[in-house]
């Protein structure tokens, strides 16, 4: 009667628990290792954890929105494979002798996806929009430095800055040019365009199923020619373990993975390695331990340097990143000219740390903890909910404990973190990261005038020479002179040690081997710089209801 079903039911339930170890491999008749020539068409499916909010990049703040928008829009310039400036909408640019005016020559024969011509009036319109005080964009400040912009003809856009501004060209690589003919009568803050954009780049928005997926198809009028892959689908899958399951079940082609998956899971599964390729690239950011420079004892340079010596960065890279990262000695991406290769990271040296601390007046008390004037050297590390930062904090805690420093860890949700602790200056030490632009300017983070609430010099760093260097760095357009400025800046920063550079982590991706055309090893610009040129051989494509 009923009990037969129940037996079956419980049997199935227990079977679940025991079969995790026994995964069936799908029979693979296809040859993933063979070489294939470039072919047109196909569909690439990737996964995102968050949903885009608004496809007008200047208004949206989140990375999901910009990731999608980057496929739809162009800027005046872009970066090429080796991180040099390359034409996008502008075919060439000329900097005046007084270094304050840039004249962009716009390519002729460019069209928007809806057939309208793309000319300098669109560029002017976009600039006016981003500098308009009513536009809710946080990124206006760079463009507001332009005191005069003009369009002498439909293929020329000219901007004049108040003073020569070295980061200028970089800022023009990240301003998506918007169509004037569609937006001139719209309220940019509330327009439906943000959900149904029209751009000029390789892809147009095909479909956006809220909360589920965003689908892009090829733009036949793309200003840079047709992309190979016809359809890009981004599935919104908030949980990374679900994403991984979808990847190995061959339901998605691409995802970001973590060091353990890269270094341990894939190497243990030949069947996965046969079908999925792993890629790593150095990102443009770093993770650091930041001291509250306004608080004792972190205002004492010896204490900061001592703590720097007491932390073993190699151990952190090995333990947290499984070796998939690099230690740093300056706030710039290794391999770029801004990175001062003469500087060496602080090596782990607990003796030197103890010497510096005793110079600063710290002696070991009877409990083995360092003490000065009756006060134990004790502080709290704050970080946000980020697995790698948490693990890093745990390792740091252990090392500091070894030399007699009592460290506790607190993990806080982001918005509370920023408002309750960072803005108010109510913290000891933080473990955080910076994600930087490709221009070396770091005025906003290190200049002494940027310490206001909500500004980014929240550690309270003040150094007159650094201030001068940062100011000069913004004005100096000559690249080799600029290099010298930022090299000196990095040198001072390393010596002052307001932060401990922990690591620059690699970005790790797992991409199904049906996707071809990916550069290996990854070039300076990263593997995604030529995603328009990737292709999927017909024979390896999934069954799809035919689209062209």
């Amino acid at each position: 009667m009923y009990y037969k079903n129940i037996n079956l039911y419980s049997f199935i339930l227990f079977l679940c628990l025991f079969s995790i170890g026994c995964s069936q491999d799908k029979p693979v008749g296809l040859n993933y290792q063979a070489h294939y020539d470039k072919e047109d068409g196909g569909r690439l499916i990737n996964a995102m954890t968050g949903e885009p909010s608004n496809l007008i990049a200047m208004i949206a703040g989140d990375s999901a929105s910009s990731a999608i928008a980057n496929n739809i829009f162009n800027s005046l310039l872009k970066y090429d494979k080796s991180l040099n400036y390359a034409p996008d909408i502008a075919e060439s640019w000329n900097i005046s002798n007084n270094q304050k005016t840039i004249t962009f020559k716009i390519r002729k024969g460019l069209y928007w996806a809806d057939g309208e011509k793309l000319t300098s009036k669109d560029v002017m319109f976009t600039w006016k929009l981003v500098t308009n005080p009513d536009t809710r964009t946080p990124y206006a400040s760079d463009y507001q430095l332009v005191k005069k912009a003009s369009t002498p003809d439909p293929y020329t856009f000219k901007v004049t800055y108040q003073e020569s501004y070295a980061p200028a060209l970089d800022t023009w690589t990240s301003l998506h040019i918007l169509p004037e003919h569609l937006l001139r009568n719209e309220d940019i803050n509330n327009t439906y365009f943000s959900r149904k954009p029209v751009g000029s780049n390789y892809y147009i928005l095909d479909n956006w199923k809220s909360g589920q997926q965003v689908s892009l198809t090829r733009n036949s009028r793309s200003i840079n020619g047709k992309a190979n892959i016809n359809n890009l689908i981004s599935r919104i899958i908030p949980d990374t373990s679900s994403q991984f399951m979808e990847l190995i079940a061959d339901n998605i082609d691409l995802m970001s993975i973590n060091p353990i998956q890269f270094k341990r899971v894939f190497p243990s599964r030949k069947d996965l390695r046969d079908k999925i390729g792993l890629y790593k690239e150095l990102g443009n950011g770093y993770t650091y331990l930041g001291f509250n420079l306004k608080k004792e004892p972190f205002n004492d340079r010896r204490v900061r340097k001592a703590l720097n010596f007491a932390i073993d960065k190699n151990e952190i890279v090995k333990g947290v990143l499984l070796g998939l990262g690099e230690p740093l000695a300056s706030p710039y991406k290794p391999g770029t000219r801004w990175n001062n290769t003469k500087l060496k990271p602080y090596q782990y040296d607990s003796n030197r740390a103890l010497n510096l601390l005793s110079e600063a007046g710290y002696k070991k008390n009877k409990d083995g903890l360092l003490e000065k004037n009756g006060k134990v050297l004790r502080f709290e590390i704050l970080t946000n909910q980020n697995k790698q930062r948490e693990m890093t904090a745990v390792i740091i805690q252990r090392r500091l404990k070894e030399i007699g420093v009592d460290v506790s860890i607190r993990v806080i949700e982001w918005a509370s973190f920023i408002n309750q602790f960072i803005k108010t200056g109510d913290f000891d030490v933080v473990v955080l990261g910076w994600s930087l632009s490709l221009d070396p300017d770091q005025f906003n983070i290190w200049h002494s005038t940027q310490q206001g609430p909500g500004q980014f010099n929240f550690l309270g760093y003040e150094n007159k020479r650094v201030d001068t260097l940062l100011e000069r760095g913004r004005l100096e357009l000559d690249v080799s002179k600029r290099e010298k400025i930022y090299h000196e800046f990095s040198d001072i920063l390393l010596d002052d040690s307001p932060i401990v550079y922990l690591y620059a982590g690699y970005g790790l991706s797992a991409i199904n081997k049906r996707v071809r055309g990916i550069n290996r090893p990854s070039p300076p610009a990263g593997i995604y710089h030529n995603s328009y040129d990737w292709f999927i051989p017909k024979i390896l494509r999934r069954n799809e209801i035919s689209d062209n």
Partner: protein
Amino acid sequence: MKKFIGNSLALAGLVIITIVLLAAALAPFIAPYDPNFIDIESILIAPSYNHIMGTDGLGRDVFSRMLYGAQISLLVGFVAVGISTGIGIILGSIAGFYRGWIDSFIMRIVDIVLSIPSFFLILAVIAFLTPSIWNIMIVIGLTSWMGVTRLVRAEFLSLRGREFVMASEAMGSSDIKIILLHLLPNSMTPIIVSSVLGIASAVLVESGLSFLGLGVQAPTASWGNILTDGKEYIQFAWWLSLFPGLAILLTVLGYNLLGEGLRDILDPKNK
């Protein structure tokens, strides 16, 4: 007592809980390693002679972490339930004893707090406060007293009309005396049952919070956070999912069995 042993469910529950309690109590003595001992040479080792439950992402011994994690799970359970039962008894007694407008008022407060789905409320509050173990316990306690209140109130309402209560009132005993000596002791069944079940639920809630990153924080070990750490490699590092998952399952099962068993035994309505 004989009934207790005869009721195999309750017995099984008690056995399981005793094992867990022993594991938690004896953790400092039987744990082979310091649960926070990081060993980056031994990251993610499968169960073996040196590490009978394997190691985690920082090379820490999982078995030791599981033992100390038992302490955390039980602590969360007991304190949270202590708080919720305490509040529930107080409010339920007052509502059930005095009835009238106090009863209505308290019941309306119960309704108001019940209006916000408790997991949502826990999430919202934990997200704002630091997710420390004390905050978690307090918040779970503060969001689960409503059931006990209703139960106690219901018992009081039905006991009110009994003779021994009326006799007590006739003798002029003070309210507190009646509540503490007569009404409460006879209402213990639902309180005990719901407390035991409440511990089970608190353990599950903590593991759920850990999944969202809002549970007990690093470096403290809890079954929930061991499980969460391993969720991205459940097939590769199966030991990070299997052991804490089973531990949570068995512990919650034990408490549920004990609770239901007690309900069967203590309920005078059963033959």
